[in-house]
């Protein structure tokens, strides 16, 4: 099914309208057990092997909230500069859909555990944009549906569906922004930067790995346009389950262009949910909200209120880690690099490995060079992330130490890294097994230099005559003769010495 949607150009859309965004992000917590029962949350288990009467909603079962779930929610709230409720309750959100066997989702309604905060996000050029946070509340994930009988697993046209409730009841924190206004043409970038920063924050807090590709963090994008100069928000669309940073940016951009086209034609935007398509970056109409959703929220009678003591909240506040943006800026200054370089390091997921390598004794320049060069390339080619490579920061630090003390040159160091990645053992073991040592025996080196001069008499004459730049060819010959195991700088020195020429 192809739906053609007329679009106006992004530039034209922004010339007439101001975008208003609202972002809702769901984060699956990394707790060992579910939010209201002791079932394991381990990934990859057999279907329906992690369920119990509580998460299946069987009669007579009673939920009890997971203490780590509540603690994680408070940590997230605090890191987002929110106020933490002194007293709040869970509520039942009633709906009929087979992904929730209870026919309601245990959530929070008008008493979220955290509210009124903000997250400062930094755009690529360094500009800081403040995103206001409306609330962060606790709830639970739904089961996983598999639709059978339709095309490509879609619900449309399916003859029936199959449900696995292992995921039903896994703790979720939903983080909702206030309307984001004033981003103008940078709205897509702000949306992406916000979700990226939130992901870094969640990881830094250690409450979830927040892997979007694994559904541990999912984003809904609300967007509306208002004519420039107006202060009345337009009707919004809600694009569901936008599940990568790039998709967040594309979804906002597409909806801006689509809304502008509809409004420009004198049409009206329908309030509806929309589906985002990864392949071409478009959205298509989902469910039209004919009537306001009526979830008949009411306080959950089976759970008692959560009233975090101020002592506990202050304890958690005091233990918060340095916020990712602050940490990045500190490291950037310590390392003396540009915003752009830092952004590349962040995008590559290299901050933590580099920091760990420096902590293991390497200098910042070498640590950066290896993780952003050789290792990033290897990760890229093998489709892995840096932290999945079979090499530790300590091993990288050891390689840099061997370069600093002169036992390895860069070329040999690369071979050592290669050996470690290939599972040949520690750097020292690889050096040993592969026989990778810089030839520092001056006698052996001297012979190789003499041979190179003798074998390239014409070049040697040029150098004697003052063309020092030609020395590269002789260095190359020596390196070749020693199979790369010589210290190139020392070779150059020796050649010039023997030819009686000084540099500069």
């Amino acid at each position: 099914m192809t739906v053609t949607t007329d679009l106006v150009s992004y530039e034209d859309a922004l010339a007439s309208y101001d975008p208003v965004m609202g972002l809702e992000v769901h984060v699956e917590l990394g707790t060992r057990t579910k939010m209201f029962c002791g079932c394991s949350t381990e990934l990859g288990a057999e279907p329906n092997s992690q369920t119990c009467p509580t998460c299946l909603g069987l009669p007579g079962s009673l939920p009890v909230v997971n203490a780590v779930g509540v603690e994680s929610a408070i940590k997230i709230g605090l890191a987002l500069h929110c106020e933490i409720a002194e007293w709040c309750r869970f509520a039942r959100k009633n709906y009929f859909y087979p992904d929730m066997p209870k026919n309601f989702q245990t959530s929070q309604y008008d008493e979220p555990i955290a509210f009124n905060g903000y997250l400062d996000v930094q755009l690529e050029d360094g500009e800081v944009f403040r995103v206001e946070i409306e609330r962060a509340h606790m709830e639970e994930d739904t089961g996983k549906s598999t639709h059978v009988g339709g095309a490509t697993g879609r619900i449309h046209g399916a003859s029936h569906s199959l449900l696995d409730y292992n995921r039903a009841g896994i703790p979720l924190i939903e983080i909702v922004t206030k309307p984001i206004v004033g981003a103008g043409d940078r709205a897509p970038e702000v949306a992406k930067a916000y979700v990226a920063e939130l992901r870094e924050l969640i990881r830094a807090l250690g409450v979830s790995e927040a892997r979007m590709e694994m559904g541990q963090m999912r984003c809904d994008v609300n967007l509306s346009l208002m004519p420039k100069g107006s202060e009345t928000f337009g009707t919004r669309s809600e694009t569901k389950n936008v599940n990568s940073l790039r998709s967040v940016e594309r979804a906002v951009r597409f909806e801006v262009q689509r809304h502008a086209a509809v409004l420009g034609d004198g049409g009206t935007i329908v309030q509806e949910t929309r589906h985002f398509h990864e392949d071409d970056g478009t959205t298509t109409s989902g469910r039209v909200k004919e009537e306001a959703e009526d979830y008949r929220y009411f306080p959950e009678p089976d759970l008692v209120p959560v009233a975090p003591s101020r002592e506990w909240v202050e304890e958690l506040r005091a233990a918060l880690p340095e916020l990712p943006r602050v940490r990045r800026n500190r490291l950037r200054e310590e390392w003396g690099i540009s915003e752009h370089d830092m952004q590349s390091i962040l995008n590559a997921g290299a901050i933590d490995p580099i920091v760990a390598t420096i902590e293991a004794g390497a200098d910042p320049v070498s640590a950066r060079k290896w993780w952003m060069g050789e290792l990033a390339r290897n990760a890229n080619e093998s489709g892995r992330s840096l932290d999945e490579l079979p090499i530790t920061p300590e091993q990288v630090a050891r390689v840099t130490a061997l370069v600093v003390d002169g036992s390895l040159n860069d070329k040999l160091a690369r071979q050592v890294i290669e050996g470690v990645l290939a599972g040949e053992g520690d750097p020292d073991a690889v050096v040993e097994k592969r026989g990778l040592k810089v030839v520092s025996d001056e006698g052996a080196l001297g012979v190789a230099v003499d041979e190179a001069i003798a074998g390239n008499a014409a070049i040697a004459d040029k150098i004697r005559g003052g063309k020092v730049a030609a020395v590269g060819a002789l260095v190359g010959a020596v390196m070749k003769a020693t199979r790369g195991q010589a210290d190139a700088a020392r070779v150059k020195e020796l050649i010039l010495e023997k030819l009686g020429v000084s540099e500069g």
Partner: protein
Amino acid sequence: MPGITREEVAHLARLARLELKAEELDHFAGQLDDIIGAVARVAEVADRDVPPTSHPLPLTNVMRADEVRPSLTPEQALSCAPAQEQQRFKVPQILGED
């Protein structure tokens, strides 16, 4: 006190996936009206200094350590399912044909 209308009962019935006959709509409208009227009398005596109650016990912060407890086996979990397939609960078509 505005009465509960027939339309409101029909709306509730739809939300609760209950099929009600025409005479039942009238019947329940009257009954629901009586019940809500009775409950509303509480508001006459409860002043602002009486906080609303959602739980009969004065407890807060009943929490569980994040420790795994045994789950049901898939066979046990599925034992009451009207239909199953691939060790999953089988449910009828969710969306009707448009």
